């Protein structure tokens, strides 16, 4: 049968076109598929929620624009939650683009949470090359590793950084990671040497690599991909980019599965005929 063979070899361009509409249409016309909150996201949220007011959270922006659709909503939701709860944030990046995204998140969230001031409630230390070495060095001395923040202000002149000298002054580390250097560097260089809990937010494709660290307790909780961002937005009651993308993700997944099923039905039917 000709059509059975055709179903097995659908042109890539047709698949791309169908997928394009599967992603674009739910973004333009939201369906509103309900999102259930995962236990992992709940643990992540509770960890920040249970910190005493005024705790210092280090957020590491280890990603670039390629992962922004998944990690930017996570970063925004976490930052909003932390600042609303009265915690202080020290942001930095092991990836060159990280601090610019931190700047975007800080500007967006500071406008929503009243009375939050740069230098007092949050600070952006910028990017340092060197990967894991930066973490080891920073753990000993923040001021030596990052003499200035992203705006070229001396750390000694920033009120928040007067309280933060080394890793013992940090209450929680959140690594938003899209690869290397990222969560593994934090686990190896800080988690294994110092008593600071580490939480990880990552892209959906990285979840499988982090799961063993989560099970062993090296990572306290994990936010995986856009779905976790959407769940977090629900928890803090601030719908954003995460929830907005959930319908598109659902429809895109179903479309890919539909193609796989069609291909297999055609394959089995052709095989039986032979």
């Amino acid at each position, binding site marked *: 049968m000709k059509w059975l063979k055709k179903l097995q070899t659908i042109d890539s361009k047709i698949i791309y076109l169908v997928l394009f509409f599967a992603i674009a249409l739910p973004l333009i016309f939201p369906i509103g598929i309900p999102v259930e909150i995962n236990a992992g996201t709940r643990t992540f949220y509770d960890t920040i929620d249970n910190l005493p007011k005024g705790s210092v959270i280090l957020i590491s922006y280890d990603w670039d*624009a390629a992962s922004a659709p998944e990690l930017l909503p996570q970063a925004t939701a976490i930052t909003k939650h932390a600042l609303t709860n009265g915690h202080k944030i020290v942001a930095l990046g092991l990836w060159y683009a990280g601090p610019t995204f931190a700047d975007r998140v800080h500007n967006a969230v500071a406008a929503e949470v009243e009375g939050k001031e740069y230098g007092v409630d949050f600070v952006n230390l910028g990017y340092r090359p060197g990967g894991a070495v930066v973490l080891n*060095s920073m753990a000993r001395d923040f001021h030596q590793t990052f003499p200035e923040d992203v705006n070229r202000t001396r750390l000694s002149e920033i009120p928040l950084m007067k309280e933060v000298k080394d890793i013992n002054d940090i209450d929680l580390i959140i690594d938003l990671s899209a690869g290397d250097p990222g969560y593994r560097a934090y686990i190896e260089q800080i988690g294994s040497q110092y008593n600071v809990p580490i939480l990880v937010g990552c892209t959906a494709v990285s979840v499988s690599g982090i799961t*063993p660290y989560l099970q062993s307790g090296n990572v306290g909780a994990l936010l995986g991909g856009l*779905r976790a961002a959407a769940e977090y937005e629900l928890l803090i009651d601030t719908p954003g980019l995460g929830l907005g993308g959930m319908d598109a993700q659902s429809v895109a*997944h179903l479309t890919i599965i539909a*193609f796989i099923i069609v291909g297999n039905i055609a394959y089995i039917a052709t095989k039986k005929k032979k």
Partner: protein
Amino acid sequence: MRREVPIIVTLIAGLLFLLDYFIKIPLISGIVGEFETWAIVISAFALGLGAANLFRIHLQKAIKKSEGWYNSVLLLVSMVVMAISGIGWTQTNSIYSYMFDNIFVPINGTMFALLAFYLASASYRAFRVRTPEATVLLVSAVIVMVGNAPVGRLIWEGFPGYSSWIMSVFNSAGMRGIIIGASLGAIVTSLRIIFGIDRSYFGGQ
């Protein structure tokens, strides 16, 4: 001496770092801290060297008007403007921000987004029930994909649970094996470098 000195420096640095990782002795921690500062400076120089090399290659292409020379000119202009605006006036200045938001983010994002389209096409072609192993892979992939999307629960309550079971049991066991294997390899390679058995880092002499 050209061979001995790097080996001795590597041996001393390696042993100091190893010792400091497990036992915190203030004197050794101080020395290791200095080494780390040097390492950060060297990393910054390495980045600069990479940029200089890229600049040299594309400048040559532009001068010689090789094929696609205009792309090289575009790269050089973008590189210079981004570098001057970012390094000269910090990453928060308006020129850097404009280029970051309107050029870098869309281009970088598009590169990764295209993967989704390739992935859809590749999974349609690759996931066929040709063998029992391929069938297991196909069924697992479908369960994980449906289970991870919010629509999964609407289709069947069991999807999220089975998806999480596959990820936390089978995937985790496989990943743990890979991580342990890679780590053992890294330990052995590190020891070989520290003790001067592996000398590939200075030209394989």
